[in-house]
């Protein structure tokens, strides 16, 4: 009996400690105790994960190669025995080639946008219990990485740094349910927010784009770039985010939403860059790659809309450049637009 009561005391003490930690950490604002604990954790994790990377590099490459071809799985079964020997030899070489290509694309993107970046490797892909979409990078405050910096790869936006340790940093991916990014439609002034959709059974795109203007024209295939935040933190302007996949037309809704496919394959991140200094001026749509094919042919309506915007684009860009010197904060224009909308008479939206 003494034993039982003693263990109840132990349980009580431990649970109290847990609750105290939970409350301290949930309060936000970087409590020194939990911050110190995380710093210590990052310090331990850095060397361990570096060692594991060295050991498991070739193994994970083989696994990824096998996973990439689900259609050819039967064939793989037959060839596996012969293949594994060759794959092991080629693995190291392929890895180097692929990575140099990725690095080149990343440098190209940062050159177009005028971003100053620090290159990094994505180390982990999963989180405890699997709700959060975060990855760890092998760079930290020692390399100049700070909290609230934009993370990109060769294709576009990856996410933002939420925590930076000495040697590692944690990145909240843009597909995470808690992530929201201010965004703008390519070639227009239509702005909105892109938020990650949390994991769900229903088959939906991983991102949702919510336009602040309910009467704005959006079409499938239009591309989206970041709007940029005040002072370039957490998001620098002009980074490609995604492509509109499906427009949800809900009559009477205050804002228009669309499902968006991200340009970055967040499940296969390897080399990424942390933007440590933003561009001097907004690169607008300069970072977007040229459109493949010519989607304007498909839709007459869209064609007309596009031509108009193309003509307006230059003037608008010049006009905007001047006005955006006082960089709008992420929710600045959002709040304005939302408060303006209900006051507008219904017809005003149709004139556009």
């Amino acid at each position, binding site marked *: 009996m003494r*034993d*039982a009561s*003693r*263990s109840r005391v*132990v*349980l009580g003490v*431990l*649970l109290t400690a*847990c*609750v105290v*930690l*939970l409350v*301290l*950490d*949930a309060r936000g604002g970087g409590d020194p105790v*939990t911050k110190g*604990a*995380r710093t*210590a*954790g*990052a310090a*331990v*994790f850095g060397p*361990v*994960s570096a*060692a*594991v990377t060295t050991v*498991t590099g070739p193994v*994970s490459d083989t696994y*990824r190669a096998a*996973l990439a071809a689900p259609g050819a799985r039967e064939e793989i079964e037959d060839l596996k025995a012969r293949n594994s020997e060759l794959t092991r030899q080629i693995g190291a070489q392929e890895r180097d080639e692929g990575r140099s290509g990725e690095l080149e694309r990343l440098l190209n993107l940062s050159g177009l946008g005028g971003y100053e970046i620090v290159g990094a490797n994505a*180390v*982990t*892909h*999963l*989180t*405890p*219990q*699997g*709700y*959060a*979409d*975060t*990855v*760890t990078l092998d760079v930290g405050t020692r390399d100049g990485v700070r909290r609230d910096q934009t993370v990109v790869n060769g294709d576009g936006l990856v996410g933002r740094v939420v925590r930076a*340790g000495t040697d*590692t940093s*944690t*990145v*909240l991916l843009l597909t*995470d*349910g*808690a992530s929201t990014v201010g965004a703008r439609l390519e070639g227009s002034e239509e702005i909105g927010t892109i938020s990650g959709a*949390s*994991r*769900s*059974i*229903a088959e939906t795109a991983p991102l949702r784009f919510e336009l602040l203007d309910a009467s704005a024209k959006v079409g499938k295939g239009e591309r989206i770039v970041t709007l940029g935040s005040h002072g370039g933190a957490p998001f620098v302007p002009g980074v490609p985010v995604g492509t509109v996949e499906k427009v949800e037309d809900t009559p009477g809704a205050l804002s228009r939403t669309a499902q968006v496919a991200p340009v970055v394959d967040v*499940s*296969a991140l390897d080399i990424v860059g942390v933007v440590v200094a933003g561009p001097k001026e907004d690169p607008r749509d300069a970072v977007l790659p040229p459109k493949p094919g010519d989607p304007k042919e498909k839709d007459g309506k869209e064609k007309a809309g596009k031509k108009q915007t193309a003509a307006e684009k230059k003037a608008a860009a010049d006009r905007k450049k001047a006005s955006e010197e006082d960089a709008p904060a992420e929710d600045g224009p959002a709040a304005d637009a939302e408060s303006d909308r209900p006051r507008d008479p219904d017809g005003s939206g149709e004139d556009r």
Partner: protein
Amino acid sequence: MKRGFAAIGLLIAAVLVQTALVDRLPLPWGVAPDLVILVVVAIALSGTSAAGAFAGFCGGLAVDVLPPADHEIGRYALLLCLAGYAVGSLRESNGRSWLWPLGVAAGATLAVCLGFAFIGMVLGDPRVGLGAVAVVVPATLLMTMVLSPFVLYPALWLLRRMDHDEFAAIGDAPWLSRGVAR
């Protein structure tokens, strides 16, 4: 004493393997098997409820602190601590089949997963919704249970062996001696 060291060693190994190795595997559904729960269950099954609670607290806290965890520190520690205590108190009844540890592990995993989601909802975590829970909880449970025989039985055997010379005659549970070849 020897068993205490063995338990600490197992726990450290589980946390490191979980965060450094398992979490980087590109597994389906974006969830991973939970080794730490399994090791805590093994420690609690072969020890007292206080030992289980303590092991759960330490293991959970380590997972809370190590990157890339993005939840409040203490959330996982609280649940694993409770799970360790509950499993530790179960242990008294004898005459279980050798499948008993697996059942306990499944129950503990399910409870911890649901508890994690529940605390998330209470704290207003925008990522925890009904749809997400419906994917994450069954997937985690399935993966953990697939892995559990390969973690539970070796861990139990090791812990059992460590105190064999001290308490050889006490509480010799049949599922321990029958399930594992000596």
